[in-house]
C-alpha cells in the first residue's frame, strides 16, 4: 500500500523534472540540439568574490542544475581574499576551478601570462553557443580588459563599473545655494561649502586609491604610464599627476570623515546613504544605492549624475568584472555552459526584472524599455548615465588602457601608498609622487619590465 503511494509521486516528479529540463533548457537559451541533462553527474567548481550579483545568481542555479544535470559549486570569498587566492591559483596553473571571476586588476596579468582559456573557441561553435547569445552585445568598454593583445576574448563581463557622482544631500546644497559641480574647481568649492554643515562631510571615499585617483590624473592631463599599453614607463611624477594627487588628497584630508584612509567601500557607502557624507564618486552600483537601498535615509534628497570634468577633459573611470575559464580547467565545456547561461540575454533580463540589479553589461538589455523603466528613479535616467560612462573608453581615446598593462597591480600598490602618505601628512604631493615614481621604476624593473 505504502509502496504504491510513494511510487506514484516519485515517478511523477521525475517525469516533471524531465519535462522541465527540456523546457528550461529551451528557455535558458540552450541549443535545442542538446539532450536534456548533457552533463549528468558532473560537479562544476567555480570561484568568485562576494557580490550581490552572485547572491542573485545563486537563486537561479537550481534551474540550471536541473536542466544540465550538473551540480554547481560556487565558492565566494571576500574581495581581497579572493583576488590573492585566485592569483596564486592561476599563476600556479591550478585546475581546482572550472570557471572563475576575472578581476579587472588582474585580467591583463592573467591574459598575457596565458592563464585563461580563449573563449572565442566556445562562442564560435554553434553546437555550444546559439547565435542569439551574440558576444557583440556586450558593451565594448566593458570588454576591453578581457580582450588580449591577439584580439581574442578571455572573459565576458558580468558587472560594469561606471564611475558616477552621487550627491546625497541636495537639500543642503539648495540651502547653501550650491549647484551641482561640473568642474574640478566646482567640486572643491561644493565640498568646502557643505563640509561641517549639520554634521555632514563634504566628501567621502575609500581605500582603493588606485581606482579613484586616475580620473583626476587624466583630467589634469596626465596618465599612469607614458603611453599604455605599449610604452609602460611610469609617469607618476609628472606635473599633472602631482596636481591630481594634491587635489584628491585635499578632498580626503579636509572634507572627508575621520579615518577615511581606512574606509572600505561599504563604510563609504554607509556614510553616503546615511546622509553623513554629501558626495561619493564611485561605480554606479555603489552610488545608486542612495536611491534603491532599503536602509537609505536620503532617497528624497539624492542625485546621481556624471562626475565633474577636469581642465583637460572628462575621463570617468570605467571597469568591469568578468567570468572566465582557467587554462587548466578540467571541465571546460561544462564551464562554458555555465558562463553562457549566467550571462545569456534571457537570464540577464530576468535578473534585472526580478531583482533590480542594474550593473550588467549587455547593451540590448540596458537599452530596453524595461531596463529604462526600472532604472529611472526620482526622474533620473540612471541607465543612460551608466551606459554612457561604460562605453566612453571605447568611443574616444582608450584612457583605461593603463588597466590593461600586466604590471598594473604593482603600480596600484605604489599609487595607494603615495596617496596615503599625502593624506596622512607624511609628505607633500610632489615629494610623495617622486618617491612613488622611484618605487614604481624599481618594482617594474624587478619584475622584468624594460623601463
Amino acid at each position: 500500500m505504502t509502496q504504491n503511494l510513494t511510487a506514484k509521486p516519485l515517478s511523477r516528479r521525475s517525469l516533471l523534472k524531465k519535462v522541465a529540463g527540456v523546457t528550461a533548457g529551451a528557455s535558458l537559451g540552450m541549443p535545442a540540439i542538446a539532450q536534456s541533462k548533457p552533463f549528468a553527474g558532473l560537479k562544476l567548481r567555480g570561484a568568485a568574490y562576494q557580490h550581490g550579483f552572485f547572491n542573485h545568481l545563486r537563486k537561479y542555479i537550481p534551474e540550471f542544475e536541473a536542466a544540465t544535470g550538473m551540480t554547481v559549486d560556487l565558492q565566494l570569498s571576500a574581495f581581497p581574499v579572493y583576488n590573492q587566492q585566485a592569483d596564486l591559483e592561476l599563476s600556479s596553473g591550478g585546475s581546482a576551478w572550472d570557471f572563475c571571476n576575472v578581476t579587472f586588476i588582474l585580467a591583463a596579468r592573467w591574459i598575457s601570462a596565458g592563464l585563461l582559456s580563449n573563449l572565442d573557441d566556445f562562442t564560435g561553435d554553434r553546437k555550444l553557443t546559439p547565435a542569439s547569445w551574440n558576444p557583440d552585445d556586450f558593451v565594448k568598454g566593458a570588454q576591453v580588459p578581457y580582450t588580449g593583445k591577439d584580439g581574442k576574448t578571455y572573459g565576458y563581463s558580468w558587472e560594469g563599473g561606471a564611475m558616477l557622482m552621487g550627491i546625497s544631500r541636495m537639500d543642503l546644497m539648495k540651502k547653501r545655494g550650491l549647484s551641482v559641480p561640473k568642474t574640478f574647481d566646482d567640486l572643491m568649492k561644493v565640498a568646502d561649502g557643505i563640509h561641517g554643515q549639520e554634521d555632514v562631510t563634504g566628501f567621502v571615499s575609500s581605500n582603493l586609491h588606485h581606482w579613484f585617483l586616475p580620473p583626476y590624473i587624466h583630467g589634469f592631463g596626465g596618465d599612469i604610464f607614458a603611453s599604455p599599453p605599449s610604452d609602460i614607463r611610469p609617469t607618476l611624477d609628472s606635473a599633472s599627476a602631482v596636481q591630481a594627487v594634491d587635489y584628491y588628497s585635499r578632498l580626503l584630508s579636509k572634507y572627508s570623515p575621520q579615518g577615511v584612509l581606512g574606509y572600505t567601500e561599504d563604510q563609504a557607502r554607509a556614510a553616503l546613504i546615511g546622509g553623513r557624507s554629501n558626495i561619493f564618486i564611485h561605480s554606479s552600483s555603489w552610488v545608486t544605492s542612495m536611491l534603491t537601498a532599503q536602509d537609505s535615509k536620503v532617497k528624497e534628497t539624492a542625485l546621481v549624475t556624471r562626475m565633474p570634468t577636469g581642465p583637460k577633459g572628462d575621463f570617468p573611470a570605467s571597469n568591469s568584472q568578468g567570468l572566465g575559464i582557467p587554462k587548466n580547467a578540467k571541465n571546460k565545456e561544462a564551464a562554458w555552459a555555465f558562463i553562457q547561461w549566467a550571462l545569456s540575454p534571457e537570464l540577464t533580463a530576468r535578473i534585472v526584472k526580478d531583482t533590480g540589479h542594474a550593473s550588467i553589461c549587455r547593451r540590448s538589455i540596458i537599452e530596453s524599455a524595461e531596463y529604462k523603466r526600472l532604472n529611472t528613479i526620482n526622474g533620473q535616467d540612471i541607465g543612460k548615465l551608466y551606459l554612457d560612462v561604460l562605453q566612453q573608453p571605447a568611443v574616444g581615446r582608450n584612457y583605461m588602457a593603463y588597466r590593461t598593462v600586466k604590471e598594473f597591480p604593482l603600480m596600484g600598490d605604489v599609487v595607494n601608498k603615495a596617496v596615503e602618505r599625502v593624506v596622512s601628512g607624511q609628505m607633500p604631493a610632489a615629494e610623495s609622487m617622486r618617491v612613488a615614481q622611484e618605487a614604481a621604476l624599481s618594482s617594474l624593473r624587478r619584475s622584468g619590465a624594460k623601463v
Partner: protein
Amino acid sequence: MKKHIIFWAVPLLLILMLTPFLWLLQMSFKPTPLILEFPPQLFFTPTLGHYVSLWKDGFPESFVNSLITSTASTALALLLGIPAAYALSRWSGPGKFGLGLGILLTRMAPPIAFTIPFFLAYRWVGLLDTRTGLILIYMTFNLPLVIWMMQPFFDAVPASLEEAALMDGAGFPTVFAEIVMPVASAGIAATAILCFLYAWNDFFFALILTRTDARTAPVAVVNFMNYEGWEWGKIAAGGSLVMAPVLAFSLLVRRYLVSGLTAGAVKG
C-alpha cells in the same frame, strides 16, 4: 589602607584588561541597529541572529577543518615528539646544544620562511587546500614544542628509577612505557592542549595554503570582512566562536598553562 588599595586593584585591573575581550562578546549578541548606537546600551535583549546566520554561511565546515587539523597534528606531534624528548633528555653526547637550538629555531622562525617552500612543494604534489597539507606544516611548530616541553619532565625522572627496572630484566621500551611515561603524564596533558591551541590559532599557514575546502575557522572569520557589508555583529560572533574552544581548553588545564605558554621556561 594601602593594603586595601592593592587588594582591590587586582580584580579591577583584571576587568580593565579583559574589557576589550568582553566588548567583543557582548557585541556578538547585540542586534545590529544597536551596535552603531551611542551611548551604547549595556542592557539589551540579546539576539542569537548573528550566530545563526554564521552557521548557515559555511562556518561549520571551517570549524570542522580546524578541529581535524588541530587534533591530528597534536596526535602526530605527541607520537613523534615524546620519544624524541626522552632521547634528548638522556643524551649525553655532543651536539645536544646544537640539536636543542635547531629545534627551538624551528619554532621561532617566522611562518613565511616555511610557507614559501611549502607553497611551491604543495602545488607540485597537490596538497594545496587540503587538511593533510595543513597538518604536515603544523608539525613545524608542534613537534619542536612537544620536544621542548617534555624534555624537562623526562629530566626529572632519575636514571636510577629506570635502572632498577632494567635490573629486574625489563626491556627498554617497557621501561619507557610503564615507568617513565606515567611520571611525565602531567606534562603530556599540558603539551597536548598547547599543541591544539597553537594549531587552532594558526592564521598565516591557513591563509596561504588553503582556498575553500580546507579553510579553517580563523581564516573564515576574516572572510566575513565582506565586500558588501561590514557586518559587525557577525564578525563579533565569528570571533567569539573561533576563540571559544581554546578558551574552554585553556581554563580546563590552567594548572599546566603556565609551563606551556612560557615555553617550559617556567614550571607550573
